[in-house]
């Protein structure tokens, strides 16, 4: 197939983005905590390596990808299914502003004022694939829009990669199907960088326990932190049991860590350490 003829784009922010490879990170609008963490971590590590992160400003994986890139101080592009002046979902207006002020852009092939319409999103997905050099799918159930993006990427002869998930999770059906059909397996940002032929900058293994989170903590609180991973969520009761500490004390310490920005509380009462790109670099 020939070079795609990109539709004319309306833009808010800096366009075109800085020279360099571009990776689209797409996936479910309702990811598991795992999927959200992977998307954010991948985007963070890719952005730090100078990759422009492209995504769709949707809920879930999209938002996590934009956030990760912004946390690394990187450039990220949101390809929208609405007019560039219509932020959808509206809860992402702050995120959209951050994308623009972070040197990235909001782009859309639709006229200003276009409201969200179901049939516009597949076209947007095609544009996203066209703008990226590689499409990484993080958690996609059967029939997910992310799979449309992946198909578009194949049509355009772009590389498609996928992050594996739990075999028990319905959100892994789409991604595992892609891997079975030959999509590249993504375990960390290095895999994506290799596909982009970018030299693997020093990257941490996202699955490793964080040795340091780049901020100084009072010594007594580090005990808890070493038990947390940034992918697998643990709850306070489990930590209390491991450390043989009273639950009241663990709750207090976790809150202190949260106050310091070192852990994050998720739905279901789980906590995990969150590496903050800006602090760590």
């Amino acid at each position, binding site marked *: 197939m020939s070079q795609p003829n990109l539709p004319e784009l309306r833009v808010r922010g800096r366009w075109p983005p800085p020279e360099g490879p571009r990776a689209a990170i797409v996936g479910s*609008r*309702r990811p*598991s*905590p795992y999927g959200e963490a992977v998307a954010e971590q991948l985007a963070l590590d890719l952005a730090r390596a100078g990759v422009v992160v492209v995504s769709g400003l949707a*809920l*879930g994986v999209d938002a996590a990808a934009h956030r990760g890139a912004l946390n690394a101080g990187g450039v990220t592009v949101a390809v929208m299914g609405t007019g560039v002046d219509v932020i959808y*979902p509206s*809860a992402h207006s702050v995120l959209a502003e951050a994308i623009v002020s972070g040197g990235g852009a909001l782009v859309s092939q639709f006229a200003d004022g276009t409201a969200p319409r179901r049939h516009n999103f597949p076209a947007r997905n095609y544009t996203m694939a066209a703008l990226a050099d590689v499409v990484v799918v993080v958690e996609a*159930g059967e029939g997910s829009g992310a799979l449309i993006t992946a198909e578009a990427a194949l049509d355009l002869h772009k590389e498609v990669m996928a992050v594996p998930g739990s075999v*028990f*999770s*319905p*959100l892994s059906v789409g991604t595992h199907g892609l891997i079975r059909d030959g999509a590249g397996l993504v375990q960390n940002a290095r895999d994506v960088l290799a596909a982009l032929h970018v030299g693997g900058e020093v990257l941490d293994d996202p699955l490793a326990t964080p040795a340091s989170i780049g901020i100084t903590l009072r010594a007594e609180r580090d005990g808890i932190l070493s038990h947390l991973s940034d992918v697998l*969520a643990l*709850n*306070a*009761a489990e930590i*209390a*049991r491991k450390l043989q500490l009273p*639950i*009241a*004390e663990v*709750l*207090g*310490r*976790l*809150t*202190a860590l949260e*106050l310091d920005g070192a852990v994050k*509380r*998720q*739905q*279901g*009462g*789980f906590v995990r350490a969150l590496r903050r790109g800006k602090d760590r670099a």
Partner: protein
Amino acid sequence: MFGCVDSCVLAGLDVRRVRVEADISRGSQVEFSLVGLASTTVKEARARVRSAVRNSGLEFPTTRLTVNLAPAELRKEGTALDLPIAIAIVLARAKRPAPARSAFLGELALDGSVRHVDGVLVAARGLRELGYETIFVPADDAIEATLAGDLEVIPCESLIAVVKHLLESEPIPVAAPHSGGGASECPIDHDLVEVHGQEEAKRALEVAAAGGHHLLLSGPPGAGKTMLARCLPGILPPLELGEALDVAQVRSLLGELPRDRPLDWARPFRAPHHGVSTAGLIGGGSRLAVPGEISRANHGVLFLDELAEFQTPVLQALRQPIESGWITITRSGGSVTYPARFTLVAATNPCPCGWSGDSVRACRCTPGAVDTYHRRLSGPLLDRIDIQVSVRRVPLDTLASEPRGESSAAVRDRVVAARERQLARQGCLNAQLKPPRLRHLAALGPASRRTLERWSAQRGMSARAFHRAWRVARTAADLDGAEGIDEHHVLEALGFRLQDVAA
């Protein structure tokens, strides 16, 4: 011929004295008129009284009979005036005065026996305060009446027995005062020892019990939210005598008091279904409001499962009683005030399908639906719930390996100690401290204050949320037996809130 006895009618928990006057005048006309703003049930008393008097072997006046219920401007409801009307007529015929400082209550059956009426305990307490020394009540309700204390209670089996007591010196023995049993008779229905794991929620339950804080449990279906809520009464101290009487009064009004064991020392636990109406929850009725679920839960626990499924107006109606501890309801018959000092335990799923955030099952809700769901939950009611905690689902296969908890009795000892500290210091529980007293009685050290302010600035906390965390921190300190609020108390308090709900 004139006779007159005293009785009363109830307006909620208020007792209004009613004087029943009977006048038998000469004349050939047979007439029985009942005046004094009697409602239909009271008007029907004429038929019951006539039959009961005749069937008791007494003579019913065959001339003009007028019964007046004074004060005439007070509307009278209920069947408790049957007995006093009959006695007034009998006394009028006998030309005898009623015994001094005594009052009568009871419904009459056609054969002359005396039937149960609702609210005898309320009436007895009110009459005692009005200066009465003896009350005649249905035999069924005698034990209940003795709870009022300091009152000679005459149990009435039948009209003829009462007449003989009054006129023929065949006295009815006075009912023996009810011992009331004791708090030791209060078994724990649901023991925390049966709850595996869930340490976080258990701790939240303990803090809620200690400080009288309202509690929100959020978690997927089958996580044990209902079980946890049912454990709360067991870790609260048993009712004190005054509280037990308050509880019994509301039940008495509703006619729900068990005859043989009117005083219950266990904390009430009410769990209305989410289809409940506003009137059912806070109280209501056509003429005078009857107590609702919140008043039945007085001094106990009100458990609202599936909080988001309740109709919004129903939840909004909870706001005022949650703050004040009582509810005033005005209906066409006047306004009544009922107590409603309860601990609210609300439970909710994290999203409409319930599985958001679960480690195994995926949530099937659309993001919009989750958003709508949360919006229904948040707002003014949630703002009044001090402690919010996530409840994790324990998978069945690991359930057995989860540690068992402490027994409710052990937790209760700590709760009681913490409550005693609060009562000694400020005369009320921490949850009821208003901000000025909070500042005065629960001063924060510099480190604690800094932590609370830092969090508040970081999260854009409302003033209400700020004080909420402060109160919970005071309770955590009380559970510790600490004089001052340390930083770790503040941190624990800040941990008791949900991630998506604005603090």
